[in-house]
């Protein structure tokens, strides 16, 4: 579903991501972790086609992102950490707009259960200005899920959600992965990743430090200890500092 080969992203002379390769198959949830400035957001933005990669190849659902970006983007959804919405469009109008962009013919039938699931039904006709941050985040999620993407990128998806919202979000991610979606999830909440992810990729200063299933990565940094937490793995893998 997601294939990344030698991805490199540079900003001038600064290299944010260096020669990164990995793949995420259907049904897998990859946790992207790393200290601040490790290149997680740059990686996600390159994978979602928001910014062009300096070098390397990204394939989304079989489509090369640089060759056929429209087909690749039709298969993906990106959920940013900061909910950005159109201030004059109501919740329902956001969904109408997104449906037209993605050509979702039966969007009304899809929107109703989505709004219900995300507890937005009662807010369907209000503007984003009247929504709490958590509600805005939910609206972004509803818009992203409307076209049933097979590939999903989440950048700090739980920011601003209440405990119940966090629980539902985790369940939703797991359910969509079980239904066949490939998910990449970037978060500093390591306990969340441990609960949700099947795989983990650790970045540090733009380089891949570790990549594999949770068990494989844990084994790599466990030094023979049993039941090492992801938090401990993360600290050992990154040396416990940003530098």
């Amino acid at each position, binding site marked *: 579903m997601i294939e990344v080969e030698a991805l490199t992203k540079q900003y001038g002379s600064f290299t944010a991501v260096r020669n990164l390769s990995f793949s995420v198959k259907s049904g897998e949830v990859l946790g992207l972790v790393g200290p601040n400035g490790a290149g997680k957001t740059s990686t996600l*933005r390159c994978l979602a086609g928001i910014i062009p990669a300096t070098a390397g190849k990204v394939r989304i659902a079989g489509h090369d992102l640089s060759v056929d970006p429209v087909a690749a983007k*039709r298969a993906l959804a990106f959920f940013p950490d900061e909910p950005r919405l159109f201030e004059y469009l109501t919740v329902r109008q956001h969904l109408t707009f997104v449906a037209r962009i993605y*050509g979702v013919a039966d969007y009304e039938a899809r929107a109703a259960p989505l709004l219900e699931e995300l507890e937005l039904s009662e807010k369907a006709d209000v503007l984003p200005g009247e929504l709490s941050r958590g509600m805005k985040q939910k609206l972004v999620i509803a818009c992203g899920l409307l076209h049933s993407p097979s590939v999903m990128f989440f950048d700090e998806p739980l920011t601003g959600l209440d405990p119940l919202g966090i629980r539902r979000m985790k369940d939703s991610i797991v359910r969509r992965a079980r239904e066949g979606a490939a998910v990449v999830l970037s978060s500093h909440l390591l306990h969340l990743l441990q609960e949700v992810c099947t795989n983990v990729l650790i970045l540090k200063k733009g380089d891949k430090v570790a990549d594999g299933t949770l068990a494989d990565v844990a084994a790599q940094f466990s030094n023979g200890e049993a039941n090492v937490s992801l938090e401990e793995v993360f600290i050992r893998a990154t040396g416990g500092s940003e530098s």
Partner: protein
Amino acid sequence: MAGALLYLRLTSLRNLVVHRLGRLRQPKYLLGAAFAVAYFYYFVFRRISAARNVVSLSGQDTRTAGMLAAGAICALLCLIAVLRVAYAWIWPPEKPGLAFSEPEIAFLFPAPITRKALIHYRLLSAQFGILFSAIVITVVFNRSGFLGGHRALHAVGWWIVLSTIDLHLNGTNLTLGRLRETSSHFLLWRVAVVTAIVLYAVAVYLSVAGPVEGYMSGRGARGLDQLSALLNESTAVYWITLPFRIVLGPYLATGYRDFAVAIGPALLVLALHYYWVSGSQTRFEEGSIVIAARRAALKGAAQRGESLKLGRKPKALPGPFPLPPRGLPELAFLWKNLLSLRSSLFSRRALGIVLGVGIWAYFGLKPLMLAHRMSGGNDGLGFLVLIFCGIIAAYTLILGPQIARQDLRNDLPNADLLKTYPMQGWRLALGELLAPTAILTVVLWVAILAAAAAFDSEGNLAWLTSSVRATLVACVALAAPIVCMIQLIVPNTVMVLLPAWYQASRTRGGGVEMFGQRLMFGIVQLLFALLVIVPAAGAAALVFVASTYYVHNVGADAVIATGSALLIFAGEAAVGLWFLGERFERFDLSSESR
């Protein structure tokens, strides 16, 4: 305590100046500053020098004209001041508050400072802005060419006017706030205030109505100078306008002696206002926090490139047209951006502007229309309307793209989201530009139709039959949308190419260099308009001339010429959209801040 507060203000001011000077090391600010300095030199300071020369040549006529101008300014200022003061008394805010910044609130409100000291600090802070404004107004609206007198005296006059108004508005705010909190008869107080204001307005009307009516009907004063003299001699007018005359006295003084006479009473009024405000015991903290939060939100919105709204919540509206889920995705952007436009159109401010323009047009154009009717249409009104329409069209093409921003520029904060949409860049750019194109096109069409209706050439141009005129109007109207779109591509491309410049130029941040940057954008827009229109217009002219040899029909010639111009415009628009889309696909706002 006053020393500490003064230190804070002066140190902040010094750091601001150092910061502004320091950023001149960046070419964009240096260039902007150079532009602004050149502009001020050529359009402001040279005019002042010219005005100074007039002083030496001024005779009785100039002096009379100067007196009239000063009288008109005085009347206008009085009117504005009365309206502002009346507004403050009639509609006080829910909670009384003073204009502090959020850091000032964070540091000063919990500090061991009395409420009175905070009021002093606020008044002192306002003085920096007032002094600056007084100097700028004196320089820009220099009137020494008419009445003589030293410019410094005028600056002092402006300072007294602005300071008194500032103190009065703060005093009103705090007094009414105090009454709201402590008096059970607040409603009665408000009724009394409104009654007093209405009575004052009636008294003003009664005292000036007679002379003005006589002047309008031709039975009273023959000229404006006579009317002004009549009003000045009226005892009723004198007493009614006395408070304003006292405050305006130093500004209106024509020499040192007049100034010396006027300054005493004016300072007394100022001191009374100061005593009134500084002695207030009103709890202004909560209101101040609300004001500071609102100001910070406005500033933040401007810096993020979002629209500015003051105390106004956007209203949910139905879509401008039904948007089926299948079809051209570009139309979804038109739908979305028209929706945001409708929300802005229904704002109170927009309605106020429309109402104001309507009233002005009615009263301003009524005498012209009457004269036009009586003259049988030979008074040149048609020509005037034509000129007016030409100006509207030129402004729409040059300034319109800076005002109609329902496109990529308004969606800059959503750039990441837009880029995940499964659309090619040029199609996304096209979709985003549709709404402002439609807006500007409608304005242009109205101007074209009005010009066509007003341009009466009967008897002068035999070839300009009504069918030819209709064809010409249709040709120009057909070209309007594509020209508007090309003009809109310019600022959007500037934003994508130079987002840091663009963002800086649209925030309200001050500094002469920012002014210069905005000026440069305007000039770029103007040059680009010429660059786009000249080749197409040239080609159209050539085709028209060539066509007249073969076709011998003005209407058909115009259609052929328009077709050639449209081809060039279409090519320009296609290249522009492709380039804009290409750049937007590669656009990364986050890299700009690195």
